[in-house]
């Protein structure tokens, strides 16, 4: 439980209402710095700060959204246009290595076709003409590439 400043300690329920606080403050009984401190404390109590989602959490949410909303599409251009895909590419600009790892893991676990994003971020394309168009072989090719990259 958060406490008010010690010199003006009042029961919590008495300064719960901001109108009362304002009235109390307007009487000039409380220095402005203390009022500011109260406001900060009340704000933090009423609007607790949410912890920032990690890169992986953000990726998972975006990837799920992308899969749900583009699952019926065949066109790679259209799939790449989706805002979630663009957001993941944007994350990749800042955290390239981590996003490549997340993409590879998701490709292997959920078979989501991240081939274009991987080619773009990794500047590589391990898919040979013999593997092209065959989902299992394309996934295997990228997973092998990822393992080589880890071992290098």
């Amino acid at each position: 439980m958060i406490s008010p400043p010690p010199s003006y300690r009042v029961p919590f329920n008495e300064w719960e209402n901001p109108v009362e606080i304002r009235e109390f403050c307007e009487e000039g009984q409380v220095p402005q710095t203390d009022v500011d401190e109260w406001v900060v404390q009340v704000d933090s109590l009423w609007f607790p700060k949410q912890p920032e989602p990690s890169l992986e959490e953000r990726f998972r949410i975006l990837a799920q959204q992308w899969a749900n909303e583009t699952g019926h599409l065949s066109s790679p251009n259209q799939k790449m246009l989706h805002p979630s895909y663009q957001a993941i590419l944007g994350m990749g600009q800042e955290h390239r290595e981590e996003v490549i790892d997340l993409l590879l893991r998701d490709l292997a676990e959920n078979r989501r076709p991240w081939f274009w994003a991987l080619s773009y971020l990794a500047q590589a394309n391990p898919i040979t003409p013999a593997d092209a168009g065959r989902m299992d072989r394309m996934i295997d090719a990228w997973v092998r590439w990822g393992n080589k990259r880890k071992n290098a």
Partner: protein
Amino acid sequence: MFYVWFPSLRGTDWRIKSPADDDYQCIAWAAIHTDRCMWPHANYTWFPGAPIFPGIDPEAATSDYFVEGFSRIGYKPIGKDRRRWVPGFQKVAIYATEVGVSHMARQRLFGRGWLSKAGDCEDFIHRRLEDIEGDVSTLAAAAGSYGIVVEILRRGWWSAFKYGCASRAFKIAGEMREYRRTHKWDAP
């Protein structure tokens, strides 16, 4: 999800035909393949000898690539309005938006509707081509619209036998019937 993707399907006579499968998509399904994904790009299977996009980045996929590719299995373009079934011919339709080709559908053998494969999801039968049409704008394309039919291609039944498509179609139909008989799957 089908009504979210294709609002015009609501109230029409349509049905799911097979479980979801990411081994093939609509273009491969139009060419009667269920073991590959097809697109005129180096990362996909395409018709031998037909042109593909240069480079690694996907570009706006104009219908010319698809007309040229499907000509390798006997199809010829006939405009976008001749949608009715004609005995002795098989048709495929190309859908596109402002960002290029989005989808292909294949007419059923005796004209009772069209067969479509929804990306990685199920394939389904819809009565008319219009039932899955949508807005063509770039914004709508990003939101998943198939756009409108821009070209219809046609070939004779003889071509279907000549290129081995007919035998493949019967084989796949048999496999799917068997799958539906032996597996319980939840049609969405």
